[in-house]
């Protein structure tokens, strides 16, 4: 099922109304812009122009309120279509649509709206500034839905584990032509590397030491390179094995240019061994080794910024990933798989309900909050070119993120401000690197 929709970037719209004209011509054979299904607004007062049009929503509000069921989303092509014979012109849909995408046709006592011209919208080609595009969204979801999970079910991760979700998603994209190394971590302990002669992974897996994922994987990769066999060698490591005891071997492999796909699943602590602080535990966070009491209130030191450190090694591809933004996640894994000229470092955000003290059912929401507050910005550095892949134009205050979990519940307002300042500073640096204003 392919579903493409019109994508609109109002910031690029010049207000030329050529899209309105193209639609009017197509639908009415006239140049009457009043009858276009896409309606451009110019607002000098807001310094913004942009069209409004039906967005063919996943759960269309118009369809929910239509008294005769005249509005239906086609399950094949995703188009929200209007059956004219059924329309009584009650206009309830015009009241329901929050995007102003459906309009009254007073004379006919009906409504009219965009139907994507059956899949080839006419409004596209006239748009020179490319404020309008036609985007295929579901390709990714459809692909994910049919790709096989490379790990078996029934592994013993905690309910709501963000790490498990990230690993399974990543491996679905990477696919069966891979060998994974699983460092001592929750991933290993929950059965992925297996016990005796069984593994929780359907693909070959081995179990390095906490200090040397990158070294051991180097050996494996070089062996297959010598035999001229194309296979992805993927390191699945936690933050402890990456930022602390494993950094030496990782740094060496990066400098040597080893073509390994190194993914750090960052749950901000040594969770497997009982929630101890690591080099990536954020400042102020509670852990069992940075408890909250009389002499200490959470971790005193700031976290290391490993992705940035790895980018400074000059490796061909570095990126931050978050499963709450699946298209971004998938695109980055795919890009990583293309790279052949050196080490790829990916850092995947992994909320830990037990270690971070939040409800298991909030994992995805918290992962999303981390991006929305810029606590964990989504960016990449592709051969030295930095790009913030998901800019937050109007991001939320980091307080919202900190409030969502128990490990920060002891923070004073002044400390929260400090965290916000740290977030701002980090983002400023990223923007400078990405050369964004």
């Amino acid at each position, binding site marked *: 099922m392919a*579903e*493409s*929709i*019109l*994508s*609109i*970037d*109002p*910031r690029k719209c010049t207000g030329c109304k050529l899209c309105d004209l193209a639609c009017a011509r197509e639908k009415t054979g006239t140049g009457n812009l009043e009858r276009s299904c896409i309606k451009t*607004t*110019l*607002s000098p*007062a*807001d310094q*913004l122009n*942009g069209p*409004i049009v039906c*967005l*063919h*929503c*996943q759960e269309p*509000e118009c369809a*929910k*309120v*239509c*008294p*005769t*069921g005249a509005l239906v989303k086609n399950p094949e092509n995703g188009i929200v279509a209007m059956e004219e*014979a*059924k329309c*009584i*012109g*009650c*206009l*309830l849909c*015009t*009241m*329901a*649509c*929050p*995007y*102003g995408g459906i309009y*009254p046709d*007073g004379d006919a*006592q009906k409504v009219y709206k965009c139907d994507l011209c059956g899949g080839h919208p006419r409004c596209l080609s006239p748009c020179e500034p490319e404020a309008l*595009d*036609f*985007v*295929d*969204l579901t*390709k990714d979801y459809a692909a994910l839905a049919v790709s096989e999970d490379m790990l078996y079910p029934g592994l013993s991760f905690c309910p709501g584990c963000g790490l498990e979700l990230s690993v399974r998603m990543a491996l679905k994209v990477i696919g069966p032509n891979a060998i994974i190394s699983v460092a001592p971590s929750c991933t290993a302990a929950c059965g992925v590397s297996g016990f005796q002669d069984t593994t929780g992974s359907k693909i070959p897996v081995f179990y390095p030491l906490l200090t040397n994922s990158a070294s051991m994987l180097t050996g494996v990769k070089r062996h297959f390179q010598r035999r001229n066999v194309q296979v992805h060698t993927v390191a699945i490591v936690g933050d402890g094995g990456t930022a602390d005891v494993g950094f030496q071997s990782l740094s060496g492999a990066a400098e040597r240019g080893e073509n390994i796909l190194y993914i750090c699943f960052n749950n901000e602590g040594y969770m497997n061994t009982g929630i101890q602080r690591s080099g990536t535990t954020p400042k102020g966070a509670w852990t069992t080794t940075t408890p909250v009491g009389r002499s200490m209130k959470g971790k005193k030191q700031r976290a290391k910024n490993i992705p940035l450190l790895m980018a400074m090694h000059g490796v061909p591809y570095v990126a931050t990933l978050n499963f709450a933004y699946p*298209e971004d996640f998938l*695109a980055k894994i795919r890009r990583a798989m293309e790279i052949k000229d050196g080490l790829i470092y990916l850092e995947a955000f992994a909320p830990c309900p037990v270690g971070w003290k939040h409800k298991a059912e909030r994992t995805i929401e918290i992962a999303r909050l981390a991006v*929305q507050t810029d606590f964990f910005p989504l960016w990449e550095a592709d051969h030295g070119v930095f790009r913030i892949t*998901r800019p*937050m*134009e*109007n*991001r*939320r205050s980091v307080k919202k993120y900190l409030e969502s979990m128990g490990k920060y519940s002891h923070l004073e307002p002044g400390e929260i401000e400090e965290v916000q300042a740290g977030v701002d500073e980090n983002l400023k640096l990223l923007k400078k690197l990405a050369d964004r204003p």
Partner: protein
Amino acid sequence: MRPVIIGNSTAAIAAVEAIHQYAPEVSPVLIAQEALPPYSPTALIALAEGRIQEKELFFRDAGVYRRNHVEEKLGKRAMGIYPRERFVILENGEQIPFSKLLIAAGARPKRPEAPGLGDGEALTLRSIEDARRLAMRLKASREACIVGAGLIGMELAQAFLAKGMATKVVEIMPHIIPASFDRAAALIIQRVFEERGVRFFLNASDLSFQSRNQSGVKQVSVGGTSVGNADVILWTTGISPRIDLVGGTLIRVHRGIWVNQKMETSVAGIYAAGDIAEAPDFFSGEPAMNPILPAAAAQGRVAGMNMIGQEAEFPGNLKMNIFAYFGRVAFSVGEIVPSMGDEEVVIRHTAQEYGKILLRSGKLTGGVFVNLDVEPGIFRAMVASREDFSSSKRRFMEDIRSFSRVWMMRRRTEGVGPREGFSRTGRRVPGNDAGLAQATLPIQQEHKT
């Protein structure tokens, strides 16, 4: 023991579909008086007029029950509920046990009652039978009398005008459509109808009917004075929720069946939704009736979700109504008259156009618009957003259309930024959050954040 739903219109089907979406293995029982697929009273005028046929009326086909794994008991009327024993009793004596119950039985039209009016001499319009009866009568009617100038009455007036019938409208209140429009808006609308020959009798008291020599024709008198004849009388003075269904139980009723934000009644495990329910108001949180289709759809969905353990909350009853008449549009959202301390900003008032917004501590509490260019859905979203617009009052007055559209565009892109996708040229491009954007502008928030 399964969930049981009494009702077969908007709220009931919204609940059925929500249950199927989140718990497809559950097989609810649906009890409905009419052995018909689901339809909404909103479409009955168009049916009676002949603008649609019966096959177009139903908003789902008869397969909706099978598709959603529903065991239907159509053509069976629910007579009573036994909350403690957990069963519903039908007219034929059959007992239907329930684990959870949704009462979405709607409302019946207010009974025509006036001196000189015999049984069946005035028509109501609430069921398909009513519509069929009206359609038959209209074949030979020349003069209509509509009692009750609410939205339904005025829609009927428009329909009768289209048929070339002489129409008079009797209304007890000082202006027409009092529940949805203020006096200024009502006058503009009324004038348009009067220009086309409709006669209005407002502030009407002592309505009575007298027989004429011809059968089927009555003389109409208001305040003791004859105002002419009518060969078809429509009684559209409102609806009464079917609260008799919960008589004898501890299910709390006031004007309707009282429910909380989860659409649960005072008895645990029993829910109500739609025209029968009295749910918290969007602004005050106080129980309020809101017999409009969008509310029924939202309430039914919330009730269905809660019935199968998928927690959802109804954001509150927000009034909204829209009236299309002779190529014009009038609509209102939320409050239409200011309460103590509210600010009323009239943004336009001419002979043809009217626009006014109400603000309380800077937040929109309502608006009334007649023939003003503004997308009703966007304005509704602005009210529902509870955003502070006190610094934008001038913008409402200067150019409400651009202002509201830009507000919507900004909200859609704020906080989420461009998104990845695969463009027609195959390259990765930033786009907008189009298909998922409703997450930033929910009409109903279904999951607690």
